[in-house]
């Protein structure tokens, strides 16, 4: 008995060691998750029962909701018309600049079939996997903001890490000022922290943080979080801010997977840098949607992002959190200096 227990413990130790040090166990993990996915569907069953209960909703309620949705649709369509005009205009201007950057990103709607029941790991399981061309490191958004990214792909399911997980870091830009920084999950399931703000950073309560294209993993310009508290402990080098994510992380059953790897224009670098920047400084709302301004930013730093396409998943997710601390803050400064310079010439 003792010998058997010892042997099993040794196997566990070996497995953990192998899992830390290499990717050799990825196949085993994939197979196991695939074989066990029926369990997830069983535990998901009560949720489906509740949804079936929704069929019994009263008719008036449905009618009321219907009119409400119709009105909303009308409003959105009205806005969309404007948006289409802007998009067409943007396209023309980009054509003038000889760049064929596609504006639209590919998205795929997925259903969240399980949330990780470890209270200290903020992960969700989605019902799309490698068969739907989901890849590791893919961005995950919902209707109101960035939710997280894919960290593991199985044949028919995939696992996403939410931005509130303490292991998750996302490069963000303060929409009001353009300051680039990193937002790390706080781990309480609700908030993000910005731990690396310089002491004189211009940031206020209520500032919107949008995703930045630095790092090349997230599509730029999606809202990420809104600042609700700023702390500055005297004697510390960095100011710290706390923010609530704009995405509805714990509500809803759907999420959108975004394919943002449009690399066609990476070669056309310097020329197109100038224009969208001037547009981005203007009205924030339109700039954010229409121009997806920061997508040109990876273009200014092609060596960093261009090489990262195949390697999106290679380093662990903690990577963005620590090393690039120094990188993002000087980088935008350089770009900002460069861009006006090119415009002037």
């Amino acid at each position, binding site marked *: 008995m003792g010998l058997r227990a010892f042997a099993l413990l040794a196997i566990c130790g070996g497995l953990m060691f192998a899992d830390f040090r290499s990717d050799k166990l990825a196949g085993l993990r994939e197979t196991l998750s695939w074989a066990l996915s029926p369990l997830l569907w069983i535990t998901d069953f009560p949720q489906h029962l509740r949804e079936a209960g929704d069929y019994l909703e009263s008719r008036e309620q449905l009618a009321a909701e219907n009119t409400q949705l119709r009105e909303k649709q009308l409003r959105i369509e009205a806005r969309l018309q404007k948006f289409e005009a802007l998009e067409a205009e943007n396209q023309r201007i980009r054509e003038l600049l000889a760049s064929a950057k596609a504006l639209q990103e590919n998205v795929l709607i997925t259903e969240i079939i399980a949330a990780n029941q470890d209270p200290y790991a903020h992960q969700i399981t989605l019902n799309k996997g490698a068969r739907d061309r989901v890849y590791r490191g893919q961005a995950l958004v919902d209707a109101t903001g960035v939710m997280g990214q894919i960290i593991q792909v199985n044949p028919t399911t995939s696992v996403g890490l939410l931005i509130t997980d303490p292991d998750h870091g996302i490069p963000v830009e303060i929409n009001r000022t353009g300051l680039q920084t990193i937002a790390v999950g706080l781990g309480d399931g609700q908030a993000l922290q910005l731990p690396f703000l310089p002491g004189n950073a211009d940031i206020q309560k209520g500032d919107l943080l949008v995703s930045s294209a630095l790092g090349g993993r997230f599509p730029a310009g999606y809202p990420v979080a809104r600042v609700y508290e700023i702390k500055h402990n005297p004697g510390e080098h960095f100011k710290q801010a706390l923010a609530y994510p704009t995405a509805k992380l714990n509500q809803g059953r759907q999420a959108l997977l975004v394919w943002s790897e449009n690399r066609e224009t990476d070669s056309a670098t310097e020329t197109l840098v100038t224009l969208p920047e001037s547009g981005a400084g203007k009205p924030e709302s339109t700039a954010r949607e229409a121009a997806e301004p920061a997508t040109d930013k990876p273009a200014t730093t092609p060596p960093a992002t261009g090489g990262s396409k195949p390697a999106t998943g290679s380093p662990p997710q*903690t990577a963005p959190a620590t090393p690039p601390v120094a990188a993002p803050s000087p980088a935008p400064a350089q770009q900002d200096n460069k861009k006006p310079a090119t415009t002037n010439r």
Partner: protein
Amino acid sequence: MTGRTAPHLAFWLSLLVALLLQLMALPEGLAGFRPLWIPLLLAYWAFNEPRVPVLVAAFGFGLAIDALLNAVMGQHALGFVLLTYLVIKLRGLFVMFPLWQSTVGLIPLWGLYAFVMFWIDGVAHHRSDPWLRWTPVVSTTMFWPIVSVLLDAYVRRRQRRQDE
């Protein structure tokens, strides 16, 4: 005891139910207090039934939980096997105790399990709220007498049926 068969079916079924309970969604406030269902069941069987393959089950279900919770491969398997082994070793000591004493006596083992998980998380650089690691110890202790009594009743009825 001779002549009776070991309750293999009940053993595997109870562990499967424990696995499902471990995965079932709970309201946010309660999630931290989810009992350690699988260790609870493993400990029960390790205590009361020497003839079922508890160690192997501990290893297998540990790997399953690792894959499902996306933890480091082997983390939970290690915890389960260690816990089961200790319970088997301590069986001679515990078997004399009434239920409430074994309830108290098992607290250090749940604590040890929680600590091993916490420690592996630390080595793997998974930051987590340390308090959330310890709350299940409380709820597991509360559920131990309930699970014990229920399964005891089942096992005894089964034995009586086999004797007849």
